[in-house]
C-alpha cells in the first residue's frame, strides 16, 4: 500500500508549478520572526509561542538578530525614544521582509492617543505595515489569524513586483 506522499505524486515524484508559487510557498511556510517585544502585547506574543497556542507549527521561530529574520511583530507601545531605533532595525533586515503591527498601541497610539507627549501614534508613521491586528491586548488566536492573513498576502505575490 502506498503512503500518503506517494499517492500524491503519480508520475515518479515530479511536480510541475510556477516559480512564483514555489517561492511564495517557501517564504510563507518559514517566516522567522525577530524577537522584539515592547510592552503588554509582548506577553501575549510569548504566550502564543508557548505550548498552548504553539507558533512553531506555522514555521515561526524567534531569532535574535535582524539579519536572520523575515518578519518583525511590533507588539506594544512605541515611544519617540524607541522610534529611531525601530527604524534602524527595520533597515537592517534583509529583503523580503514583512511587518505585523500587533495591538492598538502600535496601530494608532492606543489608550495613550490623547495626552501622550512621548507616544508615537501608530507605527505606520515611520515604517510600512502589512497586517494590523486589533485588540488591547489581542488574544493569541487573533495574532494567529493575523499571521494567516499575512500568509494569504504572500501567496498572491509575484517576483516582478517589490514586496516593501
Amino acid at each position, binding site marked *: 500500500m502506498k503512503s500518503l506522499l506517494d499517492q500524491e505524486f503519480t508520475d515518479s515524484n515530479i511536480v510541475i508549478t510556477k516559480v512564483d508559487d514555489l517561492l511564495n510557498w517557501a517564504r510563507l511556510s518559514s517566516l522567522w520572526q525577530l524577537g522584539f517585544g515592547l510592552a503588554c502585547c509582548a506577553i501575549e506574543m510569548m504566550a502564543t509561542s508557548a505550548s498552548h497556542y504553539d507558533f512553531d507549527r506555522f514555521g515561526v521561530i524567534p531569532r535574535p538578530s535582524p539579519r536572520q529574520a523575515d518578519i518583525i511583530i511590533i507588539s506594544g507601545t512605541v515611544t*519617540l*525614544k524607541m*522610534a*529611531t531605533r525601530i527604524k534602524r532595525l527595520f533597515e537592517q533586515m534583509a529583503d523580503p521582509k514583512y511587518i505585523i503591527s500587533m495591538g492598538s498601541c502600535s496601530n494608532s*497610539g492606543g489608550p495613550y492617543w490623547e495626552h501622550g*507627549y*512621548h507616544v*508615537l*501614534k501608530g507605527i505606520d508613521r*515611520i515604517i510600512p505595515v502589512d497586517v494590523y491586528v486589533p485588540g488591547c491586548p489581542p488574544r493569541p488566536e487573533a495574532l494567529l489569524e493575523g499571521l494567516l492573513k499575512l500568509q494569504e498576502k504572500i501567496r498572491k505575490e509575484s517576483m516582478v513586483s517589490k514586496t516593501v
Partner: protein
Amino acid sequence: MKTREEIFNSLKQEFPRDVLEFQNVPVEPVITVNPLAINKICHFLRDVEGFEFDTLMCLSGIDDANGEKITEADGTVTIKGGVLSVYYHLYSIKLNHKVTLKVSASRENPEVESVESIWKCADWHEREAYDMFGFIFLHHPDLRRILMPYDWEAGYPLRKDYKNPEFYQGIKIPY
C-alpha cells in the same frame, strides 16, 4: 514608635529656623521645611536614636500652580511666579513609624538640596523630578534626564503649563 506631632515637636526644637510648620491636611499631615536645609534634617532623622528612618519610600515633585496665570497670544496659559514642591515619604523598618516632609522652591529657580548621600534610592527619584519638573538638586552626582530623550528641548512635561511640540526629529507627535 512616635506620632507625626511628636516628630514635628522634636524637629522644631532641634532646627528652630528651618522647620516651618505642621499642616494638618486631611488624611496625612505634612511637615514643611526649608529646601536648603533638608539634607541636615534628614541626617538627623536617619541617625538619631528614637527616629531611625532607614528608608525613603517615595520622593515626588508637584507643580502647585499658584502663580499668576497669563494668557498668551495663541490662547495657551503660562504661569509666572508661585512655587514647585517636593514631598518626601519616610519610613522606619525598626520602629514602624512614618513621616511626610514637604519643601517648596520658587518656580523660576527651583533649587533643593539633594538627599542622595543619605539614602541611595533618592538618586533616580531626583533625576525623575528634574526631568519632569525642572528641579535642580544641589550636590547630586549625576543630574540628567532619565525618562525623556537626552536631547528633549521642549521643557518639563508634568508642569501645568507645558505645551507639546509638533515635531521631534522629523516625526509628527500629535494624533
